[in-house]
C-alpha cells in the first residue's frame, strides 16, 4: 500500500480562505451566525482526536484548550469510508479516540485530481485532515475541506509532536522554549489571547507568548508618559524573563502591523492603540 506521491505542503496558511461553512448545508453549525473573525484570530490547530471530542463546553461552544480554533488538523487512520454522491464520510482513529469526518463533494467544480486524491483514501491508510469542528446530536465531528494521504509515515510522529507543542503553548505559554513563570507587573492569565494562539504555525519568527508579553507591557505602561514606552525599557523588563531583544523587535513589528501599537516620537517608542 503506497502513500501516494504527493508533496507535503508545510505551509498551513494555504488552508485559509473562504469559510466553507457558508456553503455547507450542515444545519447544526452555529458559526454561520457569528461575524467572520479577523485574520489575526484565525489559525490552524493540530490536535488529537481526544482533544476534538472533549471540545464541547457548557455553553455549546467548541473550544480546544480554551480557544476556538478556526481550523483543526488531524492525522489519523481511516477506520471506515462511506462514499456518497455529495459527501464522503470517514471514521478516523489515531489512538486517542474515534471521530466522524464529513467531506462535502462539489461535483460540478471537482477536477480529476481531486477525485483521484479522494479515491486513494481507503481504510487502514493514514490521512491528514483539515477542517472545522462541529456538533450534531451531542457528538463532536469534523467538517473537512481538505483530506489527503500523508506524504510520509513520519508525518504521524510530526503531527503528534506538533499537537503536544501547541497544547503546551496554549496551556502554559512557552517563551523561547522555557516554561512561562509569573512576570512581575504584567498580567499573565491562564490561556492566551488571539495573537499567541497557534501563531507558531503561521508566524515562525516569534513564539506566541513573546508577542503577548510585549503587548501586555506596552498596554500597561503606555499611558505613563505622553510619548509612551521605549524599546529599551521593554528589553530591560522582559530580558530578565528570557525574552530576547530580537524576539521583542519581532513582536513589536507584529503588533504594529496588527494595529495594536503605534510609534510616537521615534521608531523605538510606542503607545498602545486600543
Amino acid at each position: 500500500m503506497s502513500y501516494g506521491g504527493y508533496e507535503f505542503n508545510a505551509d498551513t496558511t494555504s488552508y485559509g480562505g473562504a469559510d466553507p461553512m457558508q456553503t455547507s448545508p450542515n444545519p447544526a453549525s452555529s458559526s454561520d451566525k457569528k461575524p467572520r473573525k479577523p485574520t489575526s484570530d484565525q489559525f490552524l490547530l493540530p490536535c488529537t482526536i481526544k482533544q476534538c471530542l472533549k471540545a464541547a463546553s457548557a455553553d455549546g461552544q467548541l473550544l480546544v484548550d480554551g480557544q476556538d480554533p478556526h481550523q483543526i488538523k488531524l492525522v489519523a487512520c481511516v477506520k471506515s469510508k462511506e462514499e456518497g454522491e455529495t459527501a464522503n464520510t470517514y471514521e478516523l482513529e489515531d489512538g486517542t479516540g474515534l471521530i466522524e469526518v464529513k467531506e462535502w463533494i462539489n461535483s460540478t467544480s471537482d477536477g480529476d485530481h481531486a477525485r483521484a486524491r479522494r479515491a486513494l483514501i481507503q481504510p487502514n491508510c493514514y490521512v491528514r485532515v483539515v477542517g472545522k469542528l462541529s456538533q450534531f446530536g451531542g457528538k463532536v465531528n469534523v467538517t473537512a475541506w481538505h483530506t489527503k494521504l500523508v506524504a510520509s509515515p513520519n508525518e504521524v510522529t510530526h503531527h503528534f509532536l506538533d499537537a503536544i507543542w501547541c497544547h503546551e503553548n496554549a496551556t502554559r505559554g512557552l517563551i523561547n522554549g522555557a516554561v512561562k513563570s509569573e512576570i512581575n507587573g504584567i498580567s499573565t492569565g491562564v490561556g492566551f489571547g488571539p495573537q499567541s494562539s497557534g501563531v507558531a504555525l503561521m508566524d515562525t519568527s516569534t513564539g506566541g507568548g513573546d508577542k503577548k508579553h510585549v503587548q501586555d507591557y506596552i498596554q500597561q505602561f503606555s499611558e505613563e508618559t505622553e510619548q509612551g514606552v521605549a524599546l529599551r525599557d521593554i528589553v530591560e523588563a522582559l530580558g530578565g524573563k528570557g525574552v530576547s531583544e530580537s524576539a521583542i523587535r519581532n513582536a513589536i513589528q507584529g503588533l504594529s502591523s496588527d494595529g495594536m501599537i503605534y510609534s510616537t516620537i521615534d521608531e523605538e517608542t510606542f503607545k498602545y492603540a486600543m
Partner: protein
Amino acid sequence: MAGPEAQQEPGFYPRINATMVKESRYANLIVSIVGKCISNDGSSMMLETGDGQQVRIVHEGAMEPGQQTAYVEIVGCVTEDFVQHFVCRPMGDEFDLETYNEMIMLQNTKYQNITFQDEYITA
C-alpha cells in the same frame, strides 16, 4: 491502572514500545506498536521498537513473510509478554523510530490528558 470496569473506547489504544509491553499498566489492553520487522516465521514476527528492544507479535499467518514494508504498525492485544495481532498498517521503509519513541514517551507520561481515555490516565 484503570479499574476492572473500564473499557477501552473505540479508537483509543496507547502507543507503546517493546519495554512497555511488559508493564502491568498495559496488560490485556489493545495497544499500537510501531517497529522494524526483524523476523517473521509465518505465524509470529519479531519487531524492534524505538527503545532498541524486541517484541513478539503473534499473527497466525495474517502477515506473509516478505510482504510487509520494513516498518509496520501493529494494533493488537497485549497478552502476557507478546502482542496478539489484530491490524497491521504499513509504515514505509524509512521511518524515524527514535523520534517516534520520544513522542510516545511524552504521550504516555506528561501528555496523557490529550492522548489517553480519562479512565486510563495514571499519575
